[in-house]
């Protein structure tokens, strides 16, 4: 069965869960695949560790928990420290490269790709769209969900009035991802 397991990790307030939810929504509702989402929150709204586990597959998913993800998206150093060793060998690490520096904790053959997502978000006008930049980066690098699907999922998920900025955030992450991929190949 063609299945991809994803973990998104970061801090409360970075939009980790929304990132996972948008990926799952894009895959399931707009790309016609199957997806599951498991979310884990800390006790505080802000600053505590949180993560999302997303599974995307062509067929129905029997077990939604992710222990060794194929793709790990991390937005904070703590999330990197906690989850990097769990990445599947040969997996993909997508990280916020102004907050995180990958080290030797990464499993063999990891493809590590970074993006200054916080800076991009700040330059666009709002730091809180960092997660949408990361979502675009994910779509651009992995091609696991189509841009059209993730665009619809973002538009459908974010509050009214914030769509334009979120779309620009998505596009900036996606374009950067395509660039990084083109340079790497």
């Amino acid at each position, binding site marked *: 069965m063609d299945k991809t397991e994803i973990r998104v990790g970061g801090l409360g307030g970075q*939009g980790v869960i929304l990132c996972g939810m948008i990926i799952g929504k894009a895959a399931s509702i707009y790309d016609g695949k199957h997806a599951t989402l498991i*979310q884990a929150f800390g006790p505080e709204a802000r600053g505590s560790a949180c993560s999302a586990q997303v599974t995307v597959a062509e067929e129905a998913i029997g077990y939604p928990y992710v222990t060794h993800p194929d793709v790990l998206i991390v937005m904070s150093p703590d999330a990197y420290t906690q989850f990097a060793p769990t990445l599947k060998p040969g997996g993909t690490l997508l990280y916020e490269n102004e907050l995180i520096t990958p080290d030797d904790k990464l499993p063999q053959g990891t493809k590590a790709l970074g993006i200054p997502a916080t800076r991009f978000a700040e330059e666009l006008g*709002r730091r809180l769209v960092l997660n949408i930049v990361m979502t675009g980066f994910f779509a651009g690098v992995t091609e696991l969900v189509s841009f059209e699907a993730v665009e619809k999922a973002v538009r459908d*998920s974010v509050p009214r009035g*914030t769509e*334009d*900025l979120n*779309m620009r955030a998505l596009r900036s992450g996606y374009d950067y991802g395509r660039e990084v991929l083109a340079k790497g190949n």
Partner: protein
Amino acid sequence: MEAPVTLEGFPQHLTLRDGTKVVVRSVEATDSNALLQFYRSLGEADREFLTDDVTKPEWVQRFVRLVQLHEIVSLVAEHEGKVIGEATLYRTPHGWTAHVGELRVSTAPAFRRKGLGTVLAHELVRVATGLGLEKLIVQMVENQAAARRTFARLGFKEEAVLRGHVKDIHGIKRNLVIASNDVSHIWDAMEAMVADFSPTSG
């Protein structure tokens, strides 16, 4: 990376209250002459409300340059290829008022009372919130009754009156009204969404 200001959803083809078809789009580098013509077509009484001498080619060139540099965001309304209205968002990219944007809207006299000003102002508010601004302001002279109604309909509330702050073309001092619209609640909703917290999940 410089954040590009690409305006989503333009050009827009809209119909005014009397059925007049207009196109609202962002200002382009080639619009200098059309803008100059538009502003020169306004009467002196209309231009007295503007803060710049918009009839000078130097002003238009500077204006279009600022649009290109993304320092201001400007929309024009066109009817049959002619500019009939213009709306601009001014903001300071850094500092203590970086979250505030100022709106200025001008319309051709022949297209007033048809909803053109409302259309332009509404679109500019949408653009401004899309840029992440939290508070929008507009300055109006006390006797600009139509403008005051238009912005009130869009949620602007009169916040300050500067007495005798402006002089009209007859030298009469008039009060300047500053109205504002706090659009930060839009971003509060986004902030709540990315809080990554559920009171029912631990």
